[in-house]
């Protein structure tokens, strides 16, 4: 199917199969930050934003997001780097494979929730698995990042 996708504020004219998932479309267009960690919608590695909200690109049919704003981490590099530096200071981007999806969710959370508690943060990020870090350092980094925002 021919359609136009708005990815990171640029319009892409594409030909996608009706059963093509957004994750595959994005990777094929060179957005290689999109990673897949599962086949069952469980890991959150593939998180992108659709109209600013975090969504699993592995479970979202590409044709459905025509006309919506798609954002990958490539599209928000300055903010992503800002948080990534805090994450790296904690060593909590261990293998880094889960990090782009995790960072997309963290920044979406920051945009969506005001002064989240630790429990709110855990709940918001429940869909982001990480096998390396044990999550504690990620939480420390998030708190530092959010504190920076309050200041």
């Amino acid at each position, binding site marked *: 199917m021919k359609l136009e996708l708005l990815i990171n504020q640029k319009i892409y004219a594409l030909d996608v199969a009706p059963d093509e998932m957004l994750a595959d479309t994005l990777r094929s267009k060179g957005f290689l930050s999109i990673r897949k*960690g599962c*086949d069952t919608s469980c890991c959150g590695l593939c998180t992108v934003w659709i109209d600013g909200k975090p969504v699993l690109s592995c479970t979202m049919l590409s044709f459905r997001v025509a006309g919506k704003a798609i954002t990958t981490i490539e599209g928000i590099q300055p903010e992503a780097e800002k948080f990534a530096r805090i994450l790296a200071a904690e*060593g909590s*981007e261990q*293998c*880094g*494979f889960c990090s782009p999806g995790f960072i997309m969710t963290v920044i979406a959370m920051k945009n969506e929730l005001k002064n989240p508690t630790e429990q709110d943060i855990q709940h918001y990020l429940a869909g982001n698995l990480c096998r390396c870090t044990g*999550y*504690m*350092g990620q939480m420390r980094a998030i708190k530092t990042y959010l504190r920076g925002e309050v200041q």
Partner: protein
Amino acid sequence: MKWVGRSVSKIDGVAIATGKPLYTEDLTVPGTLVVKLLRSPHAFARIKSIDVAAAKQMVGVECVLTHQDVPQVRFTKAGQSFPEPSPYDRLILDPIVRYVGDEVAIVAAVDEKTALAALDLIKVEYEVFEPVLDLSSAIDHPSVVHPETDLHCNFPIGLEQQRNIASSHTVEVGDLAAELALCDVVVEETYKTQAQAQAMMETFRSFTYLDQAGRLVVISSTQIPFHVRRQLARALQIPATRIRVIKPRIGGGFGAKQTGVCEVYPAIVTLKTGKPAKVVYERKETFIASNSRHATEFKVRMGASHDGIIRAIEIVGLSDTGAYGEHAPTVFAVIGDKTMPLYNKTKAIRYQGHAVYTNKLPGGALRGYGATQGTFVQESTVNKLAAELGIDPTEIRLKNLIRETETSLYYKGKKLGSSSLHRCIETGKSMIGWDAKFPRIEQGSKVRGVGMAVTMQGSGIANIDTASAEIRLNDDGFYTVLVGSTDMGTGSDTILLQMAADVLNADMDQFIINAADTDVSPFDPGSYASSTTYVTGMAVKKAAEELRCKILEQAAKVLQAPADQLELSGEQCVDPASGKTVSVASIAAAAVVGPDHRQLSAYATFGSPVSPPPFVAGFAEVEVDKETGKVTLLDFVAVVDCGTVINPALARVQTEGGIVQGIGMALFEDVQYDKKGNLQSNSFMTYKIPGRSDVGIVRVAFEESYEPTGPFGAKSVGEVVINTPAPAIVAAIYNAVGVQISELPVTPEKVFKGMQQKS
């Protein structure tokens, strides 16, 4: 010392975290063939016929291979130094399939859809055999998992093919029966541990192509580039000179990628077609058709005098190596090697048993490599003994554990170089609030309990692991470090640079590191067995020291002062006596211009006759819902002795991550097969690794010791951290509600049933 001991951020951290294309799949090129594998639906069968005609005819399919098309030379996928202890019991494709998921055919096509459609067109007729699915009845089962006549062992490992025994192992010191008879108390328990999945987030994947010289280049998410090169040479029957293995960034390994799981498939496709090829395992394939922790069943007997001195330990049992013997003998050995030396007041010990073949997913390496299973069974028994004797679990350990400079029956006279384990226990006790909380605090329908365990591991494999490092001073005055170790997110590249920068007294940004590329890197077995900081680290340190001498020798000529009087201070060589300086940059520049010069570089190799153990004391506080049996982990405290902490932030996250994997093994990661041998826990939907709300709080502290044989006094931290959660959590549950769980994982139902049986 400017760098060692500092929480330096990883040099690749921001790049990998922000999604830069640095992993295997990101490096593929347009036109790369997609490789898919047809897998056996049967646990044990012989391929009677296989018809690939229709698949071959499909437009877009470039290559279809069956067992008739591949070299019939057995090899092992285990990543171990040659001669590998693991049996050569594999073929690339075998007419016999030994577990559900075993490879039957290789298909390569222009895209994934075509490759998958082609798989559907392959018709296979199987002669199905009765599979061996139960560990305890595998030995002497009527079905023989490996009936082939060309199975090969590099040296005796106690393999008895006809009996389904992959390896046998016995360590016996002292007269066990006599010592047990002398003990005031003897406790006994039988345990089962499950085949935990490594579940790294990046599944197995490799990308292969032919270079300008027609050589096979393998870009792979692997922990073991040099071993993969050797394996491929044997499996594909081509000289190793024709193979180059490159490791890019890796999305985790945890031991899974210490086995050459997937490289051979795209490699053979590239050799047959001349085209680039890639294989990217689905998550399901990663669960059902790679490797996992060896499941075990052990019986432990432990005897002590009434004052709590442990005099005799016996651990006897089996490990399940599944369909292939990868890591079978070594994991089995480590179960005893890395647990029994802890209690060195013993007069007699016995560790005995077999790794057995079954028709299940092969065993392999997983962080802890047997020590995890050993720790669970031994520490659970120590906890049981403490309860039986009415001695505080921390006290019984302080009384019995090996101390620095002591030896143990297992050590055959060798002495322990460093340990702060006793201090770890004291620190952990106060962090968790042991004295106020042990054994339990009732809170209405809930009850809280604390429990603890200790563990040890190794640092590299004694007398086997040998790593080399080269450091060059480049023409512009900066340094290149060349190593073959494989940073898989651990930050080892960064840590090795911290060490080099310290010796050369330079800024970290004066260094680049290259790892790992078998065409370029010096030999390194790879990153496993907690070896990189200790073994490769020492090689880097030695190379840096040698280079330092060479630089100062050159400076001595310029400054006309004796070299041993000079100091290397960042970018300058200084003669403190005269105050004169010469820059490293000018020495570097001079070294590469004109005749009679030589670029300065240093090369060092290190292997150790010992494998110094790091230690952890782990403490768990749980809350048990008495009505449901649901266990909530509230707090886990891990106090770690890894020698000198080279990078506290990275060591801490290593520890937290390992603890959480251990928590997963304790509470959530349930491995389930159906009656036909299908692994049912084959996705993150059915196999639950801990999520962030499952793990409570994990707190980490370090009690440094100084390991005399290690770089800057360092040992290791990668594996040891996974071992204590299971026994500590199980003990905390026992202390809370009196239920002893001896089969992992703990589920609410097991706890509930235990409580019911008691009341």
